């Protein structure tokens, strides 16, 4: 079910990574049932590294990202380990977790309109985490907020404006400024550009890319858009049904996907000028598993993608699938990979 043992053996020799997620499992409880959303996810992230997490709705990608900082409702059940600088955030005390949020790791949510407080100026909102965490005076915090606004390409004189006075793209920039407020080492960006237009999306991504390169912040970026992620992030994890289907360097993953799901997802985003996709939209028949189906999957063997897989074999229904090495720095959860490597 998981690849914990295989994927972590090599890392123990090197110095510990900034973020080390081990066998993370998240279940929602509702209506007397337990529905698994994340079913055993393991990965590591170093300082300054960028990891993109791709997947469809219901793949568990957002749940996974939010559970790292325990941002989910208390009724959810989270197991596994989230080691941030060696400290397990899943068992840390609330006070300690509050200190980590903002100052060590921060989140850029999708939908900046609902994430910003409509009745307070953006200056106040950017200053709040600075005052709380950096223990500086009002004046210094204000200066830092002005600096931050400037760094995301907005004039600092607009600190006194309210969220509704900004456009969608500008609000998303403000969210990024807030996430940077306490100079964190890690930013988790959950669909940061989903609601934005193409041009505004390009502006925001460009900004995020520049900031990451300059400051060496680690980034986990969640998106449904594989093509955006592959250009923003060095490494890519593709999630399906609460598990990582394939993980590895972005370029190789897109150029030579080893998992059939990665292949299908890649084809769903056509490249303009590619004759293969002209008048030939590519999709994948069927739908991702529904929550009850997910619950059933967790209790049985076999690959979760098998019902939709164009390359499925008999063994895919009966064998347990886990992440197997599929190339340098790459892993894929597919029996075909095992077959190809002769293992």
């Amino acid at each position: 079910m998981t690849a914990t043992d295989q994927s972590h053996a090599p890392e123990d020799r090197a110095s510990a990574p900034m973020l080390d997620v081990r066998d993370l499992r998240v279940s929602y409880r509702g209506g007397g049932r337990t529905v698994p959303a994340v079913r055993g996810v393991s990965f590591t992230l170093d300082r300054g590294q960028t990891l993109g997490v791709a997947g469809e709705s219901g793949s568990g990608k957002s749940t996974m990202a939010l559970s790292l900082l325990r941002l989910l409702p208390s009724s959810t059940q989270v197991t596994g380990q989230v080691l941030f600088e060696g400290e397990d955030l899943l068992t840390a005390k609330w006070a300690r977790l509050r200190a980590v949020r903002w100052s060590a790791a921060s989140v850029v949510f999708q939908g900046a309109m609902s994430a910003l407080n409509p009745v307070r100026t953006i200056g106040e909102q950017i200053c709040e985490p600075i005052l709380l965490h950096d223990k500086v005076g009002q004046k210094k915090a204000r200066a830092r907020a002005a600096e931050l606004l400037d760094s995301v390409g907005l004039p600092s004189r607009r600190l006194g404006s309210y969220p509704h006075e900004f456009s969608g793209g500008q609000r998303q920039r403000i969210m990024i400024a807030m996430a940077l407020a306490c100079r964190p080492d890690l930013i988790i960006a959950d669909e940061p550009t989903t609601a934005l237009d193409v041009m505004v999306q390009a502006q925001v991504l460009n900004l995020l890319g520049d900031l990451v390169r300059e400051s060496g912040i680690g980034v986990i970026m969640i998106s449904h858009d594989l093509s955006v992620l592959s250009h923003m992030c060095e490494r890519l994890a593709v999630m399906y049904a609460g598990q990582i289907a394939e993980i590895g360097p972005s370029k190789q993953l897109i150029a030579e996907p080893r998992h059939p799901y990665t292949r299908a997802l890649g084809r769903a985003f056509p490249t303009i000028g590619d004759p293969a996709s002209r008048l030939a939209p590519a999709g994948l028949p069927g739908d991702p598993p529904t929550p009850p189906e997910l619950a059933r999957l967790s209790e049985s063997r076999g690959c979760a993608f098998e019902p939709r897989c164009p390359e499925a074999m008999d063994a895919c229904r009966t064998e347990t699938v886990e992440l197997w090495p599929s190339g340098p720095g790459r892993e894929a959860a597919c029996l075909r990979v095992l077959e190809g490597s002769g293992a």
Partner: protein
Amino acid sequence: MKPVLEVRDLTVTYPARRGAAPARAVDGVNLQVGQGEIVALVGESGCGKSTLARALVGLVKPTGGQVLSDGVPLGYSAAALKAYRRHTQLVLQDPGGALNPRQNVFDAVAEGPRLHGLTDRLGERVHTALAKAGLRPPEQFAGRFPHEMSGGQQQRVVIAGALALEPSVIVADEPVASLDASVRGEILKLILELRDSLGLSALVVSHDLGLAWNIADRVAVMYLGRIVETGTVEEVLLRPRHPYTRALLSVLPDSGEPPVLLTGEPPDPTSVPGGCRFHPRCPLRAAEQDPRCDTVDLPVLTGEPSSSGLAACHLVQ
């Protein structure tokens, strides 16, 4: 080829709100959709593409210009509109919102035929429409409710509802924007299949240039109420001429070119700039310093497909 759907010099102006200037959402557009043709209308939010789509199906009454169906100008009496909508159907973006949660699939699809008094062999009509939309076998889906289906299946129900009236044109406003990547391709395939098997024409409104590449024959790029470039998909997407189209294509992740980031946000239809309406953001004008850009208005592009590859720009003629 005679257009099945056409707009001539269409303008839609929304009245002013409290002291603000009126919004010129559609500000002079010519566009044609031929028999069995798929035309993609692309642009950023606020460019007027959805307003244009709503005007095409008679949901918005134009302030000026005409909508023509098979060459006949659209009338706006209730009876004329009702007759028109058998011919031209609208498919909306969010199937979850378009479907009544308390209505099962059969009733959702049967609603159109019932309104039009087509109750003879209604069951057969509904089942045929469901099968055409890829919900097979139809009997299995007819009794279901929206919440029992995935987003892709819901969108197929919406499309079946449009097909139940056997229209000749479908106007689809962002038909796949709310769907998952793998499902998106399946719905686009369906639109292509319907064109091939039924000869259906379609105008597909989208912000996604990849969608145009996937299914359209022609593209019209809209900016601030006007079409700024039009032509075949190959002409517009592979050899773009208008600086706006070029910028849009350059910011796609796979473009292979350095992205041309336009400064500022999409502009405001309540204050359309004089001269070329794109001039405040135009990278080409900044480079060439041509005085015409700021002062000389551009003519409205013709909607005829024969005169292909048109760009509304002083500098690329």
